[in-house]
């Protein structure tokens, strides 16, 4: 497990390095032109962002009710990756929007709910950092609420802004746009999973160090 993560990161990094050429070869989208190419990174990041939210919530529930200390490591890893991929989504999105819609930011349901989810991740990590002893349980409680929030935020923001811009390009992609998209998606997912396991490993090793320190003069 340990020895596989590094090559994995290498492979996904190589794939991401190749990606610009593949994306470059993909056809221009007729109306948005070049700027649409942001999409190839934006979409995978957004999906992985949601995946991170799910992983964080589920592992928190397992930690809290199943009393598995290891699950907490996965929760914190997912939260951190959620923050990273959320940032990617939230930064690449406006860069694309600036050209496509003429503004950096629109209070579109998708945008607003992503921003909120990003804030929930940040709040969670702030709690973990500054919460002191016992913050693992508090964080797990918070993460549960955060996950429960996700669908609801979407619904309520959707109703709140009934006039959301119809800009989703995702559904009807031609094959020569789909292939680079899936290529990027695979690369990003691989990176995500390897980073997740690496980050969780960091947390688990930390727990081991703590345990060793505590066991040190017991013997």
């Amino acid at each position, binding site marked *: *497990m340990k020895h596989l993560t590094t090559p*994995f*990161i290498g*492979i996904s990094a190589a*794939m*991401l390095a190749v990606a*610009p*050429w*593949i994306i470059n*070869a*993909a*056809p*221009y989208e*007729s*109306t*948005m032109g*070049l*700027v649409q*190419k*942001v999409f190839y*990174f*934006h979409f995978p*990041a957004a999906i992985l962002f949601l995946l991170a939210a799910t992983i964080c919530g589920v592992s928190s529930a397992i930690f809290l009710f199943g009393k598995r200390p290891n699950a907490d490591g996965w929760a914190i890893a997912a939260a951190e990756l959620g923050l*990273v991929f959320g*940032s*990617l989504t939230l*930064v*690449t999105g406006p*860069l*694309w929007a*600036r*050209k*496509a*819609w*003429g503004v950096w930011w629109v209070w579109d349901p998708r945008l607003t709910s992503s921003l909120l989810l990003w804030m929930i991740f940040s709040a969670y990590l702030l709690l973990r950092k500054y919460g002191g002893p016992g913050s693992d349980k508090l964080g797990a409680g918070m993460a549960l609420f955060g996950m429960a929030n996700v669908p609801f935020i979407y619904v309520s923001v959707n109703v709140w802004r009934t006039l959301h*811009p*119809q800009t*989703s*390009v995702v559904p*009807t*992609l*031609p094959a*020569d*746009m789909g*292939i*680079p998209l899936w290529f990027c998606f*695979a690369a990003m997912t*691989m990176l995500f*999973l390897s*980073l997740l396991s*690496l*980050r969780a*490993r*960091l947390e688990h*090793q*930390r727990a*081991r*160090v703590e345990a*060793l320190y505590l066991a*040190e003069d017991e013997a």
Partner: protein
Amino acid sequence: MSFLRILLVLAALAFGAPPAIAAQQPPPQSEFVPVDEIPPGEQIPAINLVAAAYGFVWVVLLGYVWSIARRLQKVEAELVDLESRKR
């Protein structure tokens, strides 16, 4: 776990292969209908935005990998130290 990973790589490579062929073809006009109008009077050239987006993704991901690696190295060094002290 590791088997799954290998599968993932293979899948990724399988996906990765076709674009090379696709690249040789002249870019055909895209079939799907655009849903939105581009606002007129853009000041920022698209290439800058795309470059900024890709650059940002790269910097953040590299930075994050580096930060995890550094933290992990530190913890594992500590772990090795502790374990050797134990013996």
